[in-house]
């Protein structure tokens, strides 16, 4: 027996009496950690002054990290923000790639081994990055947080999804919504935690980023391992008390299964890819530019300080939307939930320029809070949508491949917002009005998403997995189906 056999699927089959409510917090252990990715930008400014600060003349007593950074200057040889921006971009690209390429493996080995792998990659990524900061070698940070950490993000993101859907066949949206909510909430923990740690390790001539990376890497590894240890898969044939397995398919909810490779041959996969991509594109462009956009569209009514508070509120509603909309989808259906995202989104994007025109801060903030809640809701509702369309069996692997839509939107959304704004300004449009066209284009993208969702139909039966066809599954998993 191998030393790592405790990670195997057959060792994590739940015993009678195990509460399925233990599984969502196990998933949250992983998602709360990897959600740190959204807060990585707090390290960007300190990392532009790693050399400069050592030459500083600051002699004050121990200052808050923000003031240490403010007093420091960049020196020749210090990294630029544009170079550091690639760390997050790499991480998101490798999130998409790793989730796409490891989804099938993950379905085979089970959630514990996947969570363990994610913890090693994500925690290890921080440690390699700490070495990169210590040696002032940027490529080590690209490799550490970008590549290794990005793989941890991707594997960690999809690792609990299928397990949760299997434990909660009666409420799959709520179950995956709880986990994916953690990804939104992780940034709210990571941002103040990073500042606290940098404050603890900083001196007037040292920013403390390397030490912060080491501590965060260790904390995140341990926290994710708690999730890996606690996670369980249901015993073969298990169903929740009182739950009756539907005998026949309902409209857009199949009782069959589609193999992951076969799913890629269906129009439904690509329609859902575009549904996710367009919903995320509309939201991610706003998230990245929220601070500048609010200040420019509302003239002098939003200060930089208030804009930072606005960004914090967006993070909160991004998190809450993940749980609220995914849970709602259990009652109104996945397709209808996306109809709400697209139709309400179109209305709200169309209203935003008007709210700026009449200088209504309350209306402007309200529009964006609802938009961003639907952005989060798009992420958390998609696993249950996939399960409805393709069945439970390969949902983890199919979800992994669909997340490439996120990577695409991560590039497409911000580029769209930034370039259209710049084009408008270059052609003489006032800054306050420079986002108006962008808003209407976003509304247009959401309309295309609406059409993709409208054309969604059940998968043709020729794509269903036939009896005895079970490529890549272990005996235990076979029995569990």
């Amino acid at each position, binding site marked *: 027996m191998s030393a790592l056999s405790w990670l195997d699927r057959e060792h994590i089959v739940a015993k009678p009496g195990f509460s399925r409510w*233990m599984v969502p917090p196990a998933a949250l252990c992983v998602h709360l950690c990897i959600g740190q990715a959204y807060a990585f930008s707090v390290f960007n400014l300190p990392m532009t002054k790693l050399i400069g600060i050592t030459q500083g003349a600051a002699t004050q007593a121990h200052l808050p990290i923000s003031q240490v950074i403010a007093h420091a200057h960049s020196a020749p040889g210090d990294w630029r923000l544009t170079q550091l921006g690639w760390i997050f971009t790499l991480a998101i690209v490798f999130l998409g790639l790793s989730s796409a390429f490891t989804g099938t493996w993950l379905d085979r080995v089970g959630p514990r081994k996947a969570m363990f792998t994610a913890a090693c990659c994500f925690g290890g990524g921080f440690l390699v990055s700490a070495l990169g900061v210590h040696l002032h070698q940027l490529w080590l940070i690209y490799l550490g947080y970008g590549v290794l950490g990005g793989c941890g993000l991707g594997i960690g993101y999809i690792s609990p999804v299928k397990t949760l859907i299997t434990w909660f066949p009666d409420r799959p949206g709520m179950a995956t919504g709880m986990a994916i909510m953690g990804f939104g909430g992780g940034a709210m923990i990571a941002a103040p935690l990073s500042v606290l740690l940098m404050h603890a390790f900083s001196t007037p001539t040292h920013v403390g980023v390397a030490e912060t990376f080491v501590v965060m890497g260790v904390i995140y590894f341990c926290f994710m391992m708690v999730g890996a240890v606690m996670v369980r898969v249901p015993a073969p044939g298990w169903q929740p008390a009182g739950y009756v397995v539907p005998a026949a398919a309902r409209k857009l909810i199949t009782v069959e299964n589609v193999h992951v490779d076969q799913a890629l041959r269906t129009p439904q996969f690509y329609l859902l890819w575009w549904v996710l991509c367009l919903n995320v594109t509309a939201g991610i462009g706003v998230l990245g530019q929220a601070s500048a956009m609010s200040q420019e569209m509302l003239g002098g009514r939003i200060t930089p300080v208030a804009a930072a508070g606005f960004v914090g509120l967006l993070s909160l509603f991004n998190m809450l939307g993940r749980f609220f909309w995914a849970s709602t989808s259990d009652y109104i259906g996945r397709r209808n939930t996306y109809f709400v995202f697209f139709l309400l989104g179109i209305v709200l994007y169309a209203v935003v320029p008007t709210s700026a025109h009449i200088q209504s801060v309350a209306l402007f903030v309200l529009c964006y809070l609802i938009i961003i809640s639907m952005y989060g809701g798009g992420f958390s509702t998609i696993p249950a949508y996939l399960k409805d369309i393709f069945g439970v069996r390969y949902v983890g692997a199919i979800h992994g491949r669909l997340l490439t839509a996120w990577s695409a939107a991560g590039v497409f959304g911000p580029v769209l917002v930034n370039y259209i704004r710049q084009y408008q300004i270059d052609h003489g449009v006032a800054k306050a009005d420079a986002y108006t066209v962008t808003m209407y284009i976003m509304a247009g993208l959401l309309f295309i998403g609406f059409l993709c969702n409208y054309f969604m139909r059940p998968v043709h039966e020729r794509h269903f997995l036939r009896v005895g066809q079970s490529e890549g599954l272990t005996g235990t998993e076979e029995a569990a189906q």
Partner: protein
Amino acid sequence: MSYSTDPAVRGTGQTVKLILFWAFVGIPLLWGVSQTIANATKMFR
């Protein structure tokens, strides 16, 4: 096969474990949310 998830059926140990595990993830999350709200309200003042 079906076994109950009814709290009345589960043992006290299971319930305590459940509460502790939810607290383990819930406390950091609430801390993060409270920090976010505190910053947001402070900045809008």
